[in-house]
């Protein structure tokens, strides 16, 4: 059986990856504030977990100014999408294996 991805498996990081993965690859990503609302995380917590995902190469972070306001946009990379798909497949395998044993 494939292994779960330790980086993605943490609950908030799983939610971040799920939200980014729900967008089409052609989409521009999600703004930090939107991601915060969707995941229910605090600023500091969300920032720290995005950094972990960025270090792993799973997300790309783009900081820009829209008018005078700074805006941070987070996008899932191809590697991140692949890792997330494998992680979900592994979770499904675990459930299927348990059902077979029962």
């Amino acid at each position, binding site marked *: 059986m494939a292994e779960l*991805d330790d980086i993605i*498996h943490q609950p908030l990081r799983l939610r971040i990856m799920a*939200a980014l993965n729900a967008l089409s690859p052609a989409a521009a990503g*999600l703004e930090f504030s*939107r991601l915060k609302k*969707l995941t229910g995380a605090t600023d500091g917590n969300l920032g720290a977990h995005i950094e972990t995902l960025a270090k792993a190469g799973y997300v790309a972070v783009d900081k820009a100014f829209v008018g005078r306001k700074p805006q941070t946009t987070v996008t899932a990379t191809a590697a991140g999408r692949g890792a997330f798909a494998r992680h979900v497949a592994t979770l499904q395998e675990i459930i299927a*294996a*348990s059902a077979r044993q029962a």
Partner: protein
Amino acid sequence: MTNVDAREAASALSDIEQIVRRVRQSRIYDLASQIMIMSGVLVFAGNLANWTWPRYGGYVWLSVNVLNVVGCAVISMFGYQRTGVRAFDGRMLAAFLLFFAFGIFCSSVLGHFTPRQMGAFWPIYFMLFYILAGLWFGGAFVAIGLGITVLTLIGYFFVGGFAFLLWMAVVNGGGLILGGLWMRRG
């Protein structure tokens, strides 16, 4: 390596499903709110123009509806660059044409509505589709649709003469603008 049992795996998958649903709804609300605000401004201006030049009501509403369809296409085009979701395509154009054809058939062929009846029929007809859309895409559409329908009917039965157009500018135009802003915050 992380080890989880089937119950934890199911819980993680359920978390993912919930987030995906929220992202999709947020994208729909984002696009719909922009369209709603644009429609609200057009409807507000349309009612004021109709109140100012009552004899040209037909031309006013033709222009408002054409601008509305063009505006939806433009917003959708910009939305596609941002979200990767194409909201306005050939099917959507066909849906608009069928919507208007059926409305004209009901109001001018099967029935011969007075301008006042037209002023109540078209907003209620539009709102019916908002309410139907809400059954799939979220309660905000239902709330906005029902709210504007009720206010339109109150105006139709209790606001006399040309003041009805001003009433409609506020409740239909203003209602769509406020509804759009409310959706953006959601």
